[in-house]
């Protein structure tokens, strides 16, 4: 018997276009009550490319990421992942697309009742049920080593960890299912400059190794310059400029100049 989920998966495979951008956002609008947050945003991110989304607080950067992964519904506009639209999909169908996306939350969002090991193993326990516990444990250790957390601490609870360590664990969790898209919401927020630089180096290393398409939402221009191939600057729910760091620096747009001056 063919289940709804199988049909969705088949449909996903059928509609996945290998030439399509990894992420394509088109004419996205989103309001919360009377407050317009996104005002017709369009963006694309290709495979292996990293886009940094910059902008003032409240310009809808995090909302954009939440819409891309389907945690928020847009008022209008479309989001396509590898050419497949996510609008109107049921939760389980959307799940098939989400398996290809790793998401790092601003506050790490580790499960506070689970240990470090259980946090990282969580996606494996639900999507790689055939894995033995020793294989799972081995995979967790590899992932933790990859984010610079090798050597113990597996039984620690998230509350026992520093902000930087929590971000690393959350990053390891985001990488567990070997995604080909990575969405990072303020990966360096609340960290000291040294920890921020370490996280940036880590993200850069992971991108080189895994060749993922990434969107990094940040306030930090230095991080954006380090991590990203392209930068999009948002203002009042619109993309003011979308280009390389050099194009951003050479822009004559008043808001861009003002933003760079105060960064």
């Amino acid at each position: 018997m063919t289940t709804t989920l199988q049909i969705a998966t088949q449909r996903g495979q059928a509609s996945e276009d290998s030439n399509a951008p990894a992420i394509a956002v088109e004419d996205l609008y989103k309001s919360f009550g009377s407050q317009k947050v996104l005002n017709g945003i369009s963006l694309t991110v290709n495979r292996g490319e990293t886009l940094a989304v910059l902008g003032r607080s409240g310009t809808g950067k995090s909302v954009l990421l939440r819409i891309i992964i389907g945690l928020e519904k847009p008022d209008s506009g479309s989001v396509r992942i590898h050419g497949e639209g996510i609008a109107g999909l049921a939760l389980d169908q959307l799940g098939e697309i989400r398996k290809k996306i790793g998401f790092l939350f601003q506050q790490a969002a580790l499960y506070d009742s689970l240990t470090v090991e259980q946090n990282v193993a969580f996606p494996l326990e639900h999507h790689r049920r055939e894995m033995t516990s020793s294989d799972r444990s081995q995979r967790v250790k590899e992932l933790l080593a990859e984010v610079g957390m090798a050597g113990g601490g597996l039984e620690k609870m998230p509350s026992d960890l520093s902000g930087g360590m929590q971000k690393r664990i959350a990053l390891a969790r985001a990488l567990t299912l070997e995604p080909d898209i990575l969405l990072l919401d303020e990966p360096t927020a609340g960290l000291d400059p040294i920890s921020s630089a370490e996280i940036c180096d880590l993200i850069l290393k992971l991108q080189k190794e895994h060749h993922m398409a990434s969107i990094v939402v940040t306030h930090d221009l230095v991080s954006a310059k380090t991590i990203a191939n392209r930068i999009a600057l948002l203002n009042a729910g619109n993309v003011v400029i979308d280009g390389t760091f050099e194009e951003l620096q050479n822009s004559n747009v008043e808001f861009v100049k003002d933003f760079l001056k105060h960064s």
Partner: protein
Amino acid sequence: MIDRTSSAAAVIEPPLPWLRAVFASPSGRPSKNLITGFLEWFGDLGIFFWHVVRAAVTPPFEFRELFRQLDEVGSKSLPLVALAGAAIGVVLSMETRYSLTRFGAKSLLPAAIAFSVIHDIGPIITGLVASGRVGAGIGAELASMKVTNQIDAIEASAVNPYRLLAATRILACILMLPLLTLAADFCALLMGWVAMTLVEPISLQQFLNSGLKGTGFNDFLPPTFKTAVFGLIIGLIACFQGMRTKGGAEGVGRAATSSVVLSSLFVILVDVVLVKVIIILFP
């Protein structure tokens, strides 16, 4: 210029502010109109229930989480439910003895205790104690997960939170409430006998023979299994209130409080209906 909206609101305060606060929006803002707020709340609850049912009947099934919740709801509530049942048994024995002695029907004391406990006091006490312990626990836990983005993280990991968090907790409540009711009934009867025998010695066997004489499965099973409906109400309302919370610590407190208030309220209201249905179906 006179602000007509604010001045009208100041003069005509909508009725029942506490009830409007209970049916408040996820952000805690009380609805302006009690009926609208109530209907909106019920509509959202219905949609939530539909998501949970759909997630519960489609694989993959979260058996491990279900067993964890069975332990959480069942064995961890057992001491409290047993203690409440025991206390009710003692009180019932003392109060009923006094009443029956006045009417010269003291010999009916074991039957009066057994009938009251099995028919309604055991189930309703279990329902209310579970509303407090389990309802507040689920409401606060899920609300805390919601406000710290942990539920979003579950969803972003391609795991259905309705299946993992809500369906398992609701099913655990449905399965465990009848078992907890049996424990409450047992403790109430046992302590009812202890309280009786301290005043007028009687063997346990004699007490049970006298108390359960004429009690059939029709007296025993429907009231016990109606608590499965109480379990559904407690689990559903607590999960719903927890998973729709907004705001920080205040939101968590609000979710826990409203889970207890609403589940207790609906357990009592539904009990009225179920008692009538049981009387009609099992005369």
